[in-house]
């Protein structure tokens, strides 16, 4: 298992991406698009934690871990800020004309689009967001 912990600040975002890149490069069969998908999902999730999760608090830690399990990759993001339910944010309107196009809401949508399974649990020990990314031989 690969794991790093960084503070919940925007300056940690590039560090998480670099770490994912490094971890993926050590495993064969993980192409650039899969790496990008993982970086994107993690980036969006961490951005949410950083901008909302620790709001009103002295920011704490975000723990990122990756497990490569052959047929899939499991990513876990743990934080200790306010809990927030991923499902509650409405999906962005992709068909809207330019004037009506919303400027927000894409973050979660990208997570849903790039990851195969998402699980979110919250308890007094922290919030845990887990993604499963399946590794298929053919492009999905």
């Amino acid at each position, binding site marked *: 298992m690969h794991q790093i912990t960084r503070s919940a600040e*925007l300056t940690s975002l590039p560090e998480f*991406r670099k770490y994912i890149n490094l971890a993926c490069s050590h495993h064969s069969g993980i192409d*650039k698009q899969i790496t*990008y998908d993982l970086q*994107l999902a993690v*980036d969006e999730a961490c951005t949410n934690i950083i901008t909302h999760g620790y709001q009103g608090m002295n920011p704490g830690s975000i723990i990122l871990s990756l497990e490569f399990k052959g047929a899939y990759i499991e990513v876990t993001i743990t934080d200790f800020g306010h809990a927030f339910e991923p499902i509650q944010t409405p999906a962005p309107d992709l068909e809207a004309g330019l*004037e009506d196009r919303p400027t927000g809401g894409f*973050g979660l949508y*990208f997570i849903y689009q790039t990851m195969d399974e998402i699980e979110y649990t919250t308890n007094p020990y922290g919030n845990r967001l887990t993604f499963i990314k399946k590794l298929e031989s053919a492009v999905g």
Partner: protein
Amino acid sequence: MDINFLEKHPADIVQVSGSVDALTASVLTDFLSLKISQDHTNLVLDLNQVEFMSSAGLRSVLAALKECRNKGGDLRIAGAQPGVEKVLKMSGFTNILKIFPDSENALASFSN
């Protein structure tokens, strides 16, 4: 993230390199806003050297696109790498703005 501005005709080229994420996107937004306010309303956003873009980057692009069009101009994208291109496709941005393989083609499109 670095930004290079090249004054050309019939559009100007904004070359971005690095990552456009929640940490850096506001720099891009402010830069584009400034240029547009100085009447640079036809822009090619050259993303050839952008290795990563998240939804924060999209917000930046969208804000600039709206500003350009409100002033009678346009913003077009050139050279997006596969990962960034997928982000543009997933968000449906490929429906609302034009994307080109390189900035020469993007520039030429402004002449039509």
